[in-house]
């Protein structure tokens, strides 16, 4: 597949479980060669959406195309071209690491080398261990190896770094990046915003079954610069506002935010005011909002308007 072609196209997808509408008309695309992070809190509808894309669950209404095919109707054909990493393992507990990877390489029949895959995910020394003997991070790495055994054109990875330690996360991020660099469209579902911020090229934010934002990180952050600093817990914010001509909001016991671009003059005024009033400056960060702040802002807007999706990108309900 050529770079940046839409490998996954979701349009007006609705998923219902009885009376519960878990997914309420979402639309987004995931392109080849990019990591698309599907973000949102637990219960936002991410997994249901991914399961429809995998062909595991049927859409109530709406259309989904993966590599141009309807996953529900062409699960078998798609099974040969997609790699899947489930949120909860999906591996025989008493099967050994290398046996399991070898089995999946045979199932996909794409000529992937089991030993090389095990080495790539850093489990060579554990190749004879059974799944149940692996740590949480090792289990996630094995699960990722099974998805890679497909040599996939599209990879659906559900919470790939959940429960993984810092070093393990670095390994997994490296593998995911390398996978995308081969031209694979990686769809990464996670509720860890920090994780998405580190690895995603494209972000789709879910909340309460809706897509509330869709775009690159830069697009989502655009126009939302801030200055975030830590100081004494009892700053006189009125005096500070008078000095800098901007309102600072207290967002934590000793943390403050000014919604403004980090202009050098404003920074100088702020630090001068703190020095003049004898307050420490224990932390200072200026520039684009963190994804976590973008998410908070978007979900707050969504709840305030309560009239459907809002955000910087496409609306989810169509």
């Amino acid at each position, binding site marked *: 597949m050529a770079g940046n072609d839409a490998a996954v196209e979701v349009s007006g997808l609705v998923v219902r479980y009885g009376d519960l509408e878990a997914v309420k008309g979402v639309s987004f695309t995931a392109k080849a060669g990019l990591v698309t992070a599907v973000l949102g809190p637990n219960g936002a509808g991410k997994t249901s959406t991914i399961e429809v894309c995998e*062909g595991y669950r049927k859409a109530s209404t709406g259309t989904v195309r993966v590599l141009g095919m309807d996953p529900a109707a062409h699960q078998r054909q798609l099974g040969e071209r997609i790699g899947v990493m489930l949120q909860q393992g999906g591996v025989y507990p008493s099967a050994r690491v290398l046996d399991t990877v070898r089995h999946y390489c*045979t199932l996909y029949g794409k000529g992937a080398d089991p030993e090389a895959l095990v080495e790539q995910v850093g489990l060579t020394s554990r190749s004879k261990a059974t799944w149940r003997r692996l740590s949480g991070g090792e289990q996630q790495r094995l699960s990722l190896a099974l998805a890679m055994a497909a040599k996939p054109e599209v990879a659906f990875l559900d919470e790939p770094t959940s429960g993984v330690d810092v070093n393990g996360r670095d390994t997994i991020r490296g593998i995911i990046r390398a996978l995308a660099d081969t031209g694979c469209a990686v769809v990464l579902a996670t509720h860890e915003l920090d994780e998405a911020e580190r690895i995603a090229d494209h972000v789709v934010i879910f909340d309460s079954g809706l897509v509330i934002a869709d775009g690159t990180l830069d697009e989502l952050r655009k126009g939302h610069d801030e200055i975030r600093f830590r100081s004494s817990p009892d700053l006189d914010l009125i005096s500070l506002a008078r000095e800098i001509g901007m309102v600072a909001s207290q967002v934590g016991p000793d943390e403050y935010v000014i919604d403004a671009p980090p202009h050098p003059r404003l920074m100088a005024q702020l630090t001068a005011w703190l020095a003049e009033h004898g307050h420490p400056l224990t932390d200072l960060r200026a520039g684009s909002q963190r994804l976590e702040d973008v998410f908070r802002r978007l979900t707050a807007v969504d709840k305030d308007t309560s009239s459907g999706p809002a955000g910087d990108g496409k609306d989810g309900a169509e």
Partner: protein
Amino acid sequence: MKRFTSQLRMEVQLTLRNGEQLLLTLGIPVLLLVFFSLVDVLPTGTDEPIDFLAPGVLALAVMSTAMVSLGIGTGFERSYHVLKRLGTTPLGRPRLIAAKIASVAVVELVQFGIIVPVAYALGWSPADPNWPLAVCGVLLGTMAFAGIGLTLAGRLRGEINLAAQNGLYLVLLLLGGMVIPFSKLPSGIREVAHALPSGALADVLRETLSGAGTQPGTSWAVLAVWAVAMPAIAAATFRWD
């Protein structure tokens, strides 16, 4: 074919590597056969207890593998989302089911390869055993028990399924004419026992191997009904996740 073979190898490997399953599929049948052949405490109604026990224990072996081992294993695979994950690969459900059935057959071959020689060693000497017909009975029994095991595995949570399969195993063992003759069961329960798949299979094997079935015609019919009905019910009700 490679996919089927790989899945079959994995299924057999996991079964034979699992100590609990080995105890259930080989340990208990062989233990019952040896113990009750040597210690004459069962009211078998025969001069040699082994003549009554050998066909019954072969029926028990089929039940252990096709119902309990398959059912418990599949139930946990469902709980651990193994089936869901396999469903996203090119394996496909027909190949997965075929591999499971074949793995049951492989384990049954291993069981028969051990139980039959042990029975002969204990003095079993059936006069004119009709092995081909017995194999037909075993096939029907396998279908019936696999249907029951998968029906439970496809609906119940892992731990509840485990308890249900083991409980049912015990009931069918005691009421199924495998180690306790139908004639020793109280009236009422005896009729129920004849209608159970365990009772029907034990009676069919006793008839085909020793010519000592109590109501072979009825037993074949009962077994055939279970063999058709239970897989159909399992297929209709099974949930993959």
